[in-house]
């Protein structure tokens, strides 16, 4: 029996790779920023699930760090897009 956590992670990683398509296509920079933002959200789920799949509780810290910090780079992008930086 395959671990359900792994299946979930696998599907989520596929979704991450799919959003790469939008990063590639996105006509404007804003679309790409949206793609990055989406990936940031998904990645937190991926990191949490992988941590559980590895049975390593300490790994969840990485997810928290990523959730808190990816947001800052998003803000920089948004500020630059708005021409306010």
């Amino acid at each position, binding site marked *: 029996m395959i671990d359900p956590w792994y299946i979930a992670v696998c599907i989520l990683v596929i979704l991450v790779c799919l959003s790469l398509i939008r990063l590639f296509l996105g006509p404007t920079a804003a679309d790409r920023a949206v793609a990055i933002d989406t990936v940031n959200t998904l990645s937190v789920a991926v990191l949490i699930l992988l941590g559980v799949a*590895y*049975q*390593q*509780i*300490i*790994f969840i810290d990485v997810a928290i760090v990523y959730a808190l910090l990816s947001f800052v780079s998003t803000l920089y992008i948004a500020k630059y897009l708005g021409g306010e930086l």
Partner: protein
Amino acid sequence: MFWNLPLIAVVVLTIIALAIIVFKKNLIKVFLGIVILESAVNLFLISLGYREGGIAPIYTNAPSTAMVLPTPQALTLTSIVIGVATSALLLSFAIIIWKKYGTIDIDRIRRLKE
């Protein structure tokens, strides 16, 4: 062979990064290439230390059977910080060059020759 995937990725990423450095005219693009090169080297170091079925080298309540090798992780931490220091200095050079020359095109940053 298939199991060497990260090491193959290291080779591919290194070549892509060198191609970015050599073929792109824009300084910032070149610096992005350097960042990718650094990440590729970091990936190389980390994959050297991976051991099949090993867990992270931290003693917690998790069952400790075999651990991955810790030294490459320590080296990579050092390398990452060196990487960010490098890119900060490089980018500040680029900003000054933009101010003084009005361009960051490598073809036109050529006042020093002969």
